């Protein structure tokens, strides 16, 4: 039973580290800022969650006397709550700086609606 | 101890990243990039303090070095920019 918990925890830790590594590779390879924000901040969210779950499972020996699980749970909830907010704020800042989208982009409905005066432009300075 | 080896590997890696970040903070032309690089330096310094088993110093370093000084630097930069324009 206990060895099973430890092995499951190790598998989760490996999957989380691999997901973080994927996020970093995406950060290096993607063509423009928007795609980098997409892969860079959100694959890393799943990676951090999986790693924390794995580490919490690997400390099964002293779950009762030391507070491992509570602290890991607070960290996981904290990451789920803050990470989309920070990446969304970054994306809006990039759009306000008018960084051009890459050449692969097919459609930009937001720019069309700004030109049609439906939405007001996010302002820079 | 096995842990000693892995701790020194982490310390060497984080130390070299801190060194490169400090060089960027000095040499870059844009002020905002330099401020972010300085924030990265103090965030990694707090990991390094944690490796020396000093969690209280690490917490203080993260709060002061990264949070407060970055906030004050950006506030002042914004004020200066608005005054010049």
């Amino acid at each position: 039973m206990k060895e099973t918990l430890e092995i499951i925890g190790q598998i989760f830790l490996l999957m989380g580290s691999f997901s973080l590594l994927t996020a970093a590779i995406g950060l290096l390879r993607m063509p423009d800022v928007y795609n980098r924000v997409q892969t860079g901040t959100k694959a890393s969210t799943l990676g951090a969650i999986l790693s924390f779950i794995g580490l919490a499972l690997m400390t099964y020996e002293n779950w009762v006397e030391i507070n491992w699980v509570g602290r890991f749970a607070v960290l996981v909830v904290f990451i789920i709550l803050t990470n989309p907010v920070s990446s969304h704020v970054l994306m809006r800042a990039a759009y306000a700086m008018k960084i051009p989208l890459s050449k692969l982009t097919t459609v930009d409905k937001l720019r069309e609606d700004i030109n049609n005066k439906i939405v007001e432009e996010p302002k820079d300075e | 101890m096995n842990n000693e080896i892995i701790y020194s590997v982490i310390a060497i890696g984080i130390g070299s990243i801190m060194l490169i970040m400090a060089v960027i903070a000095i040499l870059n032309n844009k002020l905002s990039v330099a401020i972010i690089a300085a924030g990265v330096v103090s965030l990694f310094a707090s990991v390094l303090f944690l490796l020396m088993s000093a969690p209280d110093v690490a917490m203080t370093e993260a709060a002061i070095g990264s949070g407060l000084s970055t906030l004050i630097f950006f506030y002042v930069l914004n004020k200066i920019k608005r005054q010049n324009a």
Partner: protein
Amino acid sequence: MDNIVIYISIAMLMATLLAGLIRFVKGPSVVDRVVAFDSMTVTSLVMIGVIAFLSNRAIYLDVAVVYGFLSFLGVVIVAKYIQGGL
């Protein structure tokens, strides 16, 4: 030699930090650098968790909570500065 998994994951985390560093050095705009900063701080959060597991002291995780909150604050401050608020 029973914690070989920890070694592999530490190696992956170091590679992630290196990739973030490369993007920070290369990045053409400020936003690229802030994204690299965010990715590096999440990676070092996981690294603090691994260090706490290795040295068997749960108090280190409190540092991780403070660290995560301050990195979130830093990203929001930079974005507010870019949009001209603050």
